[in-house]
């Protein structure tokens, strides 16, 4: 993380008395930042202080911005950038920004100005934002849809606020039935934040990735994730097992009022026991007990050709509400992109090709 360094951006909002100021967040701001991101309607765990620490372990640099209204933290964004030796980078604001209510346009403008400076310093050509907004606000000018989304744009939330009987009742009949099947088969669940359980989780996850043919993050990623988030109480691994044999495993992240099923898988043992149903049902009850209002299945699609289609058929048995967000948006710094291209084009010209002289037009 960059050293705290006040940014020279402050302005009075039109018609408002408060002064909007943008500056780096310091470790002292962490409690206020975490509260702000937990309470936001667009809350995302990838904007938590701990997640940023995890990404730093992964080799990212983080740039933690805060918007202050009369010295009160009112918004901000943690920006991630993976610096490498190719000289062309992206700034990534996964799950952000959080713009102060009533000051959105001014805050965004200030922030983009600050990011332009940062882009110059780190050699970035664009910033990619991924706020969990359901609609595109009018002040989001100059942004274009990004080719990929780090966060799913469509996901499935289970409302945990009703009592367990009502949550079960809201499931599809097949989901409810399979939860009971797992119970009849004697599937037991346990949740842990012990690092020593990570190898078992990863074996299940890896085997699932191989079987289902999706790219799996490496073991080191999970070591860093669990070493950072588990001591903060932000992550747990859940196992479904029968007769001591692990049948399914999930990794759940807790942030604010939400529990997110981030990773998981199942073994090929005893599929008739419907262990995954029992495990997610247990995870929902556990999240509810922790005070969560929703359980996010983290990715969903009803479209049969979507890459999530197979997983979504399973998830939809739990009922829930489909939530759609606007997806990742790119904002290009054309001066930086031009700078990069000029640098390359100039270097690639055959020796002997000259640039214009200083007085040529």
């Amino acid at each position: 993380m960059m050293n705290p360094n006040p940014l020279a951006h402050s302005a009075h909002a039109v018609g408002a008395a408060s002064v909007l100021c943008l500056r780096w967040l310091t470790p002292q701001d962490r409690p206020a930042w975490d509260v702000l991101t937990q309470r936001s309607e667009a809350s995302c765990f990838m904007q938590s202080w701990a997640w940023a620490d995890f990404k730093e372990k992964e080799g990212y640099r983080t740039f933690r911005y805060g918007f202050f209204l009369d010295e009160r933290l009112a918004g901000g964004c943690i920006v991630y950038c993976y610096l490498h030796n190719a000289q062309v980078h992206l700034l990534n604001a996964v799950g952000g920004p959080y713009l102060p209510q009533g000051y959105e346009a001014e805050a965004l403008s200030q922030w983009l100005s600050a990011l332009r400076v940062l882009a110059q310093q780190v050699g970035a050509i664009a910033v990619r934002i991924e706020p969990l907004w359901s609609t595109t606000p009018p002040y989001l000018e100059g942004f274009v849809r990004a080719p990929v989304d780090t966060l799913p744009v469509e996901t499935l939330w289970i409302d945990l606020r009703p009592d367990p009987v009502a949550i079960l009742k809201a499931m599809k009949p097949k989901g409810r039935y399979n939860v009971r099947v797992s119970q009849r088969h004697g599937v037991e669940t346990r949740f842990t934040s012990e690092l020593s359980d990570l190898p078992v989780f990863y074996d299940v996850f890896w085997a699932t990735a191989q079987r289902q043919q999706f790219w799996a993050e490496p073991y080191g990623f999970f070591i860093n994730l669990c070493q950072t988030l588990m001591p903060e109480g932000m992550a747990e691994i859940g196992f479904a097992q029968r007769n001591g044999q692990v049948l399914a495993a999930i990794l759940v992240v807790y942030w604010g009022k939400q529990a997110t099923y981030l990773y998981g898988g199942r073994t090929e043992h005893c599929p008739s026991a419907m262990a995954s149903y029992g495990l997610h049902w247990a995870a929902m009850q556990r999240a509810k007990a922790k005070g969560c209002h929703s359980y996010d299945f983290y990715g969903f699609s009803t479209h049969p050709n979507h890459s999530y289609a197979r997983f979504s058929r399973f998830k939809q048995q739990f009922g829930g509400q489909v939530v759609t967000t606007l997806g990742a948006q790119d904002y290009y710094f054309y001066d930086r992109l031009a700078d990069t291209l000029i640098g390359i084009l100039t270097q690639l010209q055959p020796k002997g090709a000259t640039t214009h002289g200083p007085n040529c037009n």
Partner: protein
Amino acid sequence: MSASLFVERHDNGIAFYINGNLQFDTADEALYHEYLTVPALAIAIQRFPNTPLRVLICGGGDGLAARDVLRFPQVRDVTLVDYDPEVVALARTEFVPYNQGSLLPTPDADLGSEQVTVHIQEACEFVQQLPDHCFHVVIGDFTCPTQPDHTTVHSQEWFAQIARILVPSGIAAFNGVSPEKTPTAFWCLYQTLFAAGLSPKPMRVSIPSFRRLEYGDWGFFLAATEPITATELVDLHLPHSLQALTLSKLLETFQFPMATAHYRHGLNINTLACPHLFYYLLNPPPLRDCAEASSEMVNFLTLEETGTGQQSPIDALRIEAIAQHWLMQLNQGTLDLDDSQLAAALLPVRHTHHVPAMSREWLEHGKSLIAAIDPQQLLAQILARSQELPPKVSQELKALAESLRTGQPLTRLSTHAAEFVAVLTVALMIANLATPDVVYAKGTSSSFHGGGSFHGGGSSGYYTPGDDGSYAYSDGSPFGWLGFWMMVVGGIWLHNLYRNDES
């Protein structure tokens, strides 16, 4: 960034990971450490009879290599330098049952640790301060590089320092990489050792815990300024108390399948300025089908050869190098679709979390990436600085900007305009692919199977090179995997812009 350490406990021992990569599993670590240390010590004892030996271990903070060095009564003192105090702390606590207290600063240790001096420091800094010819044996026991700067301790400059501090005829032994899974990286090290004035003998060992994690056979190097001969090796006297290593097994380790060994020529060496090792590690040649692979072996025990490594002026992972490959393909007009090395040059893997197939998947996003760019804005920014460009490039980009502005038909792209589109595509691709998480994205703006096809939607037009160096637009035929993809994308981009202007 500090290293991430993880000790995994199992019923009969532990496995130790740094940054998610297995360093040792107590079930078979003896294999690794005995092959790394014992042959070098045994040769040194032959070369320096009746001489108390001075040994330097670079890396190896877990104390396991030190344990095996201390087996030899001829060793007078051991100097160990490791940059990570946390690893050394583990060596002095959790790892003691396995390293027999080799790094414990107390006389209570099983091994005579008063012989061992530990320095917590970067090995490069430490070695640079050493006088010439001060160690009989140097052991390099570093983690496999996961970032370009990790290759410093595998560079020509580093090995030259090792050659400098070795007494004449002294022996060095280095942990390598997998000759099976990353053969070009392994032989890059081989050539780099030659380039540093050392004469290497490559070794290949199968370590079950490494194989289980699909690391493949593991490689080591014995090296010396005075070449190590087959006679020396067949006459070695090994200690009796070894767990894994025998003389006959040692002699077998110098045998390499031709399918692997043939990669050793025509490679760039690894230097501080150009860390080619990292490129080779991330972009290995495709593994050959076992059925196709020849059973012919090359025996490096008896083979005497000199280095053939090349010194490349540019890091293959830098954007200029990648753009250069794209422009070469653009100008050649042909492409060998089965040439994986060419594919790697065009869109190299640049992060240890990625594999080549991930990069290739990303080609599908090129169309949407480039479609998001506003060419008028971009060209305006570039042309505002046209004095920095060669005049011909500047003129052609001005003409392109004018065509776009006036909506003229773009039936021909000039050479430099086509190069501009190609370089833009490369820059956008690299910026995205350099972010490790991007390949694990939880969706795309069109997350449908085949939805990102190069042929879907928009235009089916493409550009082909003409005799005059320009690129003529035509309609129709489908394209192969990467066949002139950049021109397709560029063509679609410009063509759509033109159509939009028309509409």
